[in-house]
């Protein structure tokens, strides 16, 4: 039975031998870095090395070589990600990531660097080579290179939506309609044919949310007339009798007998009004429109009065 000190010594010796083995394994390169909490790791000597550059280290320090889009000039112009979530955008030359502080510090906080909040914004900074820099005030956003155009993002959001033409409920291709009898026109309402529907698109720190809704439907009734309806129309009920639709209708004065295949071609064209706004990373907003069509045919007959 080993005494306690002897056991401890044996354990220690075992640890040391194990340790030296591990050290040998790292002899090919690498260094130990520890964070403030004491978490230590063995990392590459060149801790901002990027995959693909490892075998060509000289190129990075050659001033004439093509620079990556985003690079750290304090570490041989090495490539860094241009954007990282919760870091913000890399600013070449400043060698830091900047992200607008959210929330902004209280008025009078030293991070305002004496400026008035109306004159700019405080940015959280992460600078790999400068531990002391954690914040900076800017009048204008510091990293302009990687700016995202919200209008372009809005188009992407629109692409994610399914925007269809009107779902025509009346007139029906199988229906029979008469000259001189008011025809009521209306559409079924669903998210894909009438709205509203929403979609978002994100690039970097910017998220745009777009909401689409049909703002009007233009009916071309095939007899040369065009009717603009700002709503889905009104569903006909028998009690309405011969009255006109209160919202969206048409009165044919000629039969479709002479039209192609004996029917009028009816085209309903909806205008999707799309409002978009930046829901993360700014405050811009805007509008877009999209046009969609649906066609149907309608037979217009003449009322036969039987005497």
């Amino acid at each position, binding site marked *: 039975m080993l005494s306690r000190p002897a056991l401890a010594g044996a354990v220690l010796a075992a640890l040391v031998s194990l340790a030296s083995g591990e050290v040998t394994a790292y002899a090919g390169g690498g260094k130990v870095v520890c964070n403030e*909490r004491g978490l230590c790791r063995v990392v590459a000597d060149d801790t901002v090395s990027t995959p693909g550059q490892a075998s060509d280290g000289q190129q990075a320090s050659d001033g004439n070589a093509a620079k990556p889009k985003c690079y750290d000039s304090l570490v041989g112009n090495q490539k860094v990600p241009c954007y990282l*979530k919760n870091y913000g955008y890399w600013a070449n030359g400043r060698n830091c990531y900047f992200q607008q502080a959210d929330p902004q510090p209280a008025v009078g906080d030293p991070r305002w660097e004496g400026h008035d909040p109306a004159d700019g914004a405080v940015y959280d900074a992460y600078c*790999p080579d400068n531990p002391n820099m954690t*914040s900076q005030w800017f009048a204008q956003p510091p990293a302009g290179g990687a700016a995202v155009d919200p209008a372009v993002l809005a188009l992407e959001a629109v692409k994610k939506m399914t925007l269809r033409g009107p779902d025509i409920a009346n007139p029906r291709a199988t229906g029979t309609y008469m000259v001189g009898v008011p025809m009521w026109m209306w559409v079924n309402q669903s998210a894909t044919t009438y709205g509203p529907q929403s979609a978002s698109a994100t690039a970097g720190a910017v998220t745009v949310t777009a909401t689409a809704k049909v703002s009007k439907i233009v009916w071309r009734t095939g007899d040369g007339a065009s009717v603009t309806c700002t709503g889905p129309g009104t569903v006909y009920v028998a009690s309405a009798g011969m009255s006109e639709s209160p919202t969206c209708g048409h009165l044919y004065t000629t039969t479709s007998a002479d039209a192609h295949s004996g029917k009028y071609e009816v085209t309903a064209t909806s205008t999707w009004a799309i409002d978009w706004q930046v829901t993360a990373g700014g405050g811009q907003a805007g509008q877009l429109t999209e046009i969609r069509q649906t066609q149907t045919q309608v037979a217009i007959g003449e009322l036969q009065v039987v005497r």
Partner: protein
Amino acid sequence: MPWLTAVRIRKRSTVSAALVTFTALAATAGCSTNDSDTAQKSPSPTTASPTNTVSAAEAQARKDVIAAYQGMNNEQVKAYAKSSLAGSNITKYATGAALRDTKDTVFVNMQNGIIVKGEPKVTVTEDDVAIDATGTRATLTVCFDLNTWESVDKKTGKSVTPPNQVKRYTTVAHLQEQGSRWLVIDEKADKAKTC
């Protein structure tokens, strides 16, 4: 061998269990008739009173301080596990140097293909919180154990922790109340100070 076993058991004790234990101890100490002993064990850092009694407001503040620290710890565990701050709420718990250190750890690990598995054992009690006279700054002494928090190569899964590391030690965190929220502003490890 018995002492090794004892150590292992202590390391396995969960944070919550440790909290309960220490809180219970503190309560007992408060009732103790041995005043000098009590004062030595748990000196109240914020008041001149020799007893352990703290105001309700201070007791709440101490809880909030610990919650902020644990919030930061949890966010770090999540971020280091994937080497990304995407979706992180770290800024709700850390600012200044503590936030910078988190970002730096993620950045360096990301560039080196390192992720950190598991989570550290954080042992902290309300008696480890010292709040200053203004009531807006706090110092927190933490027993930090990263035996269960392992840095590994993301591809190979092999440990990248250097050998001969002290893995259980004391850290001191400073917190500041900003806009009714306690935030960790920095934390420093003192590996020479075991716990």
